[in-house]
């Protein structure tokens, strides 16, 4: 049960899971003069080693064990460093480790003949190390270390091709909205990602400070065992603000509204990096953080945390809607996938939020996490497949592809499988089950606005199916585009990528379908694991929260009973949810099929109608949010600073020195004038002085 195992046994494994990638990162530069193969294999070796260590503690997680080991660290403030491997962390850690291992294998081939491999592998290892640190650390401060670590690694990898060559840009060149260019260089994108994340991070820091101030600890377990801080914060009405501020960090990292804009530009990095960012590390960190603190705040529900969960749910819903609509019209394959990631993360947030708005926390929580798992699988697969295509056709625009299904059969098949999962094809894909679980948890909740959330969720599902089919249709169906014809004329044969490249995404796509085939059972199992975890650690059961003291008093004895209770409830199918889910797939999929696969309707028709054309432009210009962001955040402040620099700093401040100088010169001139050497004037002044003095004396 909740056993704090020390620094021995499996405890060491938990430490090493996140340390190994860092050690690997430190080790890689030593190989700088070695050949490419060695570098790549060493890096992959480190990631695999970490993955196997993660696997070694998986049984602990599935049997609801917990590894919690601490060492003294910052003793001036009595802060400990520690790892906390509870079921949530262990499952997440395995997911991260294995998906990143697959991406690493893929990178060997994808980054073949790249010059700066050392830098690439350094930051890739640093990336997964930081992510595992977020997952496994037992306190918010260490989470923040990892948090900034992934931010830094993403900055470095998004701007990996720092020479800013035109081919590495994203966006259509020449496309400006309100004077803001919508195409971006890699380094620009890196800075944008870093700064937007920073905006989220400072919110998270402020939230952490508030909690630290009242509790004197950052530790998740310590915050749970002693809840007096929550009392104090509630009295000051600071509890919800602090929670929301911490969620602000998740907004930044997971690219949720309103900090969503960096995610699209993040596509400037190598595709393997995009896969890592979207599937395993960066954006999942935000969801994980919410999954980490969500139960804690739900366990504090006596303090009325409803608003926090409402905000989480609505931010998720808005983001899901916002980004799904934009994905409908974008011509770049990686950007479509990026929009879709943001949108799917919105789903997860919605589920985690809705979990806190019901008495049955576990359903929503499981749904959100299940969707995280299935999304990680199919999105990693999709990105790697997209990378394979980019690798072959040398273009990021889907209009430069087309008809590829004959030339790249394997890529076609596996990408189709993963796409079906994203679209939520009924019964056989993991995407279907997890989406269905989210629908069901929204429907089952007794939140007053849940019908609106449900409506948004279904609409987004329709759009998801549509843009997925659009993507598949544009890439694999229809006639080969001009670009491909040109390439073939030049003697480039369009052919399948090599084994090392397609195998990783094939495995993930198949995994996604396999989980889909046993989807119901898988969900049940997950539900069971989380139910036991939540009830034993947080006192969260099917019917609300029981005081933690009772849980801990009885942990040893009622363990079996708790498990029994957990398995009995939950995870029966909700017919409305299933129906909605199937219909959404049907409608969206059919429209996509009609437009882009059978091509019986020409999508160019949109331009004929004023309304649809305006709508298209609105979506294509990203709801003008990017432009607003740039105007408010960059252009206007810089203009203001420029004025200040010109008039205040240079005119006024820099004027101080010369004006002191000139006034001194002037004074000396005045003084000099008196020394004219004219005796008559001297005598005159002298006698005038005597007169004045005499008069003063006489008076």
């Amino acid at each position, binding site marked *: 049960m909740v056993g704090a195992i020390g620094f021995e046994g499996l405890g060491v494994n938990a430490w090493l899971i996140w340390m190994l990638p860092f050690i690997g990162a430190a080790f890689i530069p030593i190989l700088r003069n070695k050949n490419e193969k060695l570098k790549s294999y060493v890096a992959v070796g480190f990631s695999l080693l970490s993955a196997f260590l993660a696997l070694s503690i998986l049984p602990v997680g599935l049997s609801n064990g917990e590894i919690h080991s601490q060492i003294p660290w*910052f003793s*001036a403030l009595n802060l400990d460093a520690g790892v906390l491997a509870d079921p949530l962390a262990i499952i997440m850690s395995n997911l991260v480790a294995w998906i990143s291992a697959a991406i690493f294998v893929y990178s060997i081939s994808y980054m073949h003949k790249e010059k700066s491999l050392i830098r690439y592998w350094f930051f890739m290892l640093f990336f997964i190390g930081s992510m595992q640190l977020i997952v496994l650390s037992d306190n918010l401060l260490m989470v923040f270390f990892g948090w900034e670590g992934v931010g830094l690694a993403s900055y470095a990898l998004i701007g990996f091709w720092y020479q*800013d060559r035109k081919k590495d840009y994203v966006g259509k060149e020449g496309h400006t909205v309100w004077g803001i260019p919508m195409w971006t260089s890699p380094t620009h994108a890196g800075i944008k990602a870093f*700064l937007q994340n920073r905006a989220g991070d400072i919110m998270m820091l402020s939230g952490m400070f508030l909690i630290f101030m009242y*509790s004197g600890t950052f530790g998740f377990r310590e915050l749970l065992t*002693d809840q007096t801080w929550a009392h104090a914060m509630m009295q000051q009405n600071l509890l919800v603000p602090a929670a929301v501020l911490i969620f602000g960090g998740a907004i930044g990292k997971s690219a949720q509204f309103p900090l969503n804009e960096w995610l699209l530009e993040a596509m400037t990095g190598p595709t393997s990096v995009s896969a890592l960012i979207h599937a395993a590390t960066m954006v999942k960190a935000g969801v994980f953080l919410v999954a980490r603190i969500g139960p804690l705040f739900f366990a504090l529900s006596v303090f009325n945390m409803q608003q926090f969960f409402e905000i989480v749910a609505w931010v998720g819903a808005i983001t899901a809607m916002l980004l799904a609509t934009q994905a409908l019209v974008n011509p770049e394959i990686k950007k479509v996938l990026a929009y879709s990631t943001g949108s799917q993360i919105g789903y997860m947030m919605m589920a985690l939020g809705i979990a806190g708005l019901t008495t049955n926390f576990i359903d929503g929580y499981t749904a959100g996490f299940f969707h995280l798992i299935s999304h990680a699988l199919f999105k990693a697969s999709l990105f790697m497949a997209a990378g394979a295509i980019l690798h072959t056709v040398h273009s990021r625009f889907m209009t430069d592809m087309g008809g590829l299904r004959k030339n790249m059969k394997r890529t076609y098949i596996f990408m189709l499988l993963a796409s079906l999962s994203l679209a939520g094809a009924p019964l056989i894909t993991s995407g279907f089950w997890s989406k269905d679980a989210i629908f069901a948890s929204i429907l089952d909740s007794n939140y007053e606005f849940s019908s609106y959330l449900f409506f948004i969720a279904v609409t987004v599902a329709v759009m998801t199916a549509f843009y997925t089919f659009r993507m598949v249709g544009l890439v694999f169906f229809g006639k080969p585009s001009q670009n491909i014809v040109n390439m073939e004329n030049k003697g480039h044969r369009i052919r399948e990528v090599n084994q090392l490249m397609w195998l990783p995404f094939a495995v993930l796509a198949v995994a996604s379908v396999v989980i889909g085939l046993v989807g119901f059972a898988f969900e049940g199992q997950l539900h069971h694991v989380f139910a036991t975890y939540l009830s034993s650690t947080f006192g969260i059961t099917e019917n609300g929260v029981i005081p933690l003291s009772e849980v801990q008093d009885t942990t040893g004895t009622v363990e079996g009973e708790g498990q029994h209770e957990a398995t009995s409830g939950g995870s029966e199918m909700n017919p409305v949810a299933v129906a909605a889910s199937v219909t959404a797939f049907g409608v969206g999929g059919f429209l996509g099929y009609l437009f882009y696969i059978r091509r019986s309707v020409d999508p160019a028709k949109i331009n004929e109608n004023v309304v649809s054309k305006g709508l298209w432009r609105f979506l294509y210009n990203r709801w003008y949010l990017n432009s607003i962001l740039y105007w408010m955040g960059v252009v206007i402040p810089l203009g203001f600073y420029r004025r200040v620099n010109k008039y205040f700093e240079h005119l006024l401040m820099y004027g101080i020195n010369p004006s002191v100088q000139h006034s001194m010169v002037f004074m000396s001139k005045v003084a000099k004038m008196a020394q004219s050497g004219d005796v008559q004037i001297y005598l005159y002044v002298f006698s005038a002085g005597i007169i004045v003095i005499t008069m003063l004396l006489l008076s």
Partner: protein
Amino acid sequence: MVATFMPLILSPVVYFLGKRKGINITTWLTFGILAISTILVIIPSIGLGSGGNYQEIFDWSQLGHFGLKLDGLSIPFAITIYLLSTIIVIYSKPYMVRKILIQFDQVKNSLGNKSQFDDVENESYSATDGKSLSTLVLNADQKNYLNEQLALYYTLYLVFAMGMLGTVLATNLFEFYVFFELMLVPSFFLIAFFGYGNRKRTSIMFFFWAHVGAVVMLLGLMAMGFLSGGFDYDVVKANVSQIPPAWIAVIVASLIIGFGVKLAAFLVHVWLPDSYTDAPTPITVLISSVMTGIGAYGLIRLWIELLSGPGNYTDYSIYVNIWGLATMIYGGAMALMQKDIKRVLAYSSISSMGYLLFGIGSESVLGISGAIFMFVTHALGKGILFMMAGSIILQTGTRNMDKLGGLGGKMPYTAVFAMIGGLTIIGVPITSGFMSEWVLFNGALQNAVVDWSSLKAISFALAITATILTSAYILWMYKRIFYGVVPETLKNIRDSSMYILVTMGILASLTLVLGLYPDLFYKPIIGYVESLYDHSPSEIIPVKIKAGTGQEPVGQAGVSPDQGQSTSNVTNVSYFGSAQKTHLISGNQLVSFVTI
């Protein structure tokens, strides 16, 4: 004692020896002197732990005692100052040799030209001159000139280092002032002799500003000394209640303004950009990293520690806080506007000094501790960045970022170290920057909440938002230097010599070490800052949070920790206005925290 005065006493030796024997001997002799002194400073510091101090005191005329003291406040300052001074000696060698040779050419070429040094635009001097030092063949004239100038440089350098150290170790107001001016004089000459651009004018301006600041401060020092009946810190501290309240205001104002000038706070910052740009880069490193920060030391030591009566600190702290905020934002905004690397970094220093002021005005243990640690952090981070600027000037001959670009591939080591330095300034974890920033901001927020003051809350919010500004200018500068396309003129650039890279590497590893083990400095710092309020138990305590140290919190209304209790309990549930403590058990170690 030896540590302080050895550089001063040996500086003539360096000069004469250097003139005769040449540049290598001078460099290593200077290095040796400073290295030994550094060790002599570090040794007593290690034994001190979180409390106590190490003192050497001598009688000194009627002004009181001449003493040198290492305690929780001066340890981080002293070690940083000497460590940096020592390392920069090595860094100086290739840089100054190049600089002096160029000056030699200028002198030779412009003989008979009346305005030989005025308005020399020094930007395009060495792109063609890119031979490495070892292959440089010098004629006899050049050699003599070089020996003499470098000897002079290191002589002034030693005095400069010693002045800075003396300032932070002084135990007497008068002694403080003497050292304070003593560090100014050599830096003035260093800029005037070895600077860039209009260096004589700049050096005079630098001297003028620094001296005006010092004189304003002197006013405060004299008032403190005369009104409390002695110049020794101990005497002032004991008799602070004798100072009339009206005078307190004058003293505090003069101290804040005087040190504000030194810190180049907003509105009195105008001396800084030019001085930093025109000073030779190794000296810029020292001035920027350590010399300006001494203003912060002065404020903490003379204001917060010595004038410890009720309200003497709290009544004015909010102004310092807001002044710091303004400096922070203004420096950051102006840094975005610059094209010259050194100017960006100069404004960035202004901004960082704003952080220090912000922390000092935050009225909390953590805020002040964070500010002290920030000094160390800033010294390391900005030191690396200025060294990066020097490395680039040395290799490319320009510091105009419009002419640079894509150097990441050409100068990889400089780029890596500069990144670490940049991250330190931004405050990203595992660099020490984060460790100072979060403690500092945490303290500020605590104070805001404890006072329930919306002004302070807004000030905190703006300050923490200003870190985005910091990241923006650092990253943008980095992009303009290291990313993009390499200009045609710089196709054949190589990375700097080992002298430069190794020294940068040492600082970079130090910031990583401090980021992982902040205890090294935080223990003495927090111990010191907590002790600040020990002697005024009944007065209003400006610092409301006591970070857990296991020792009895002093001057708090709460109940002392009960070592035997094992479960968490709350002893006092009135959260504001009195103390509340929670005891947590973590493992078998008792962690006691006093909140608020």
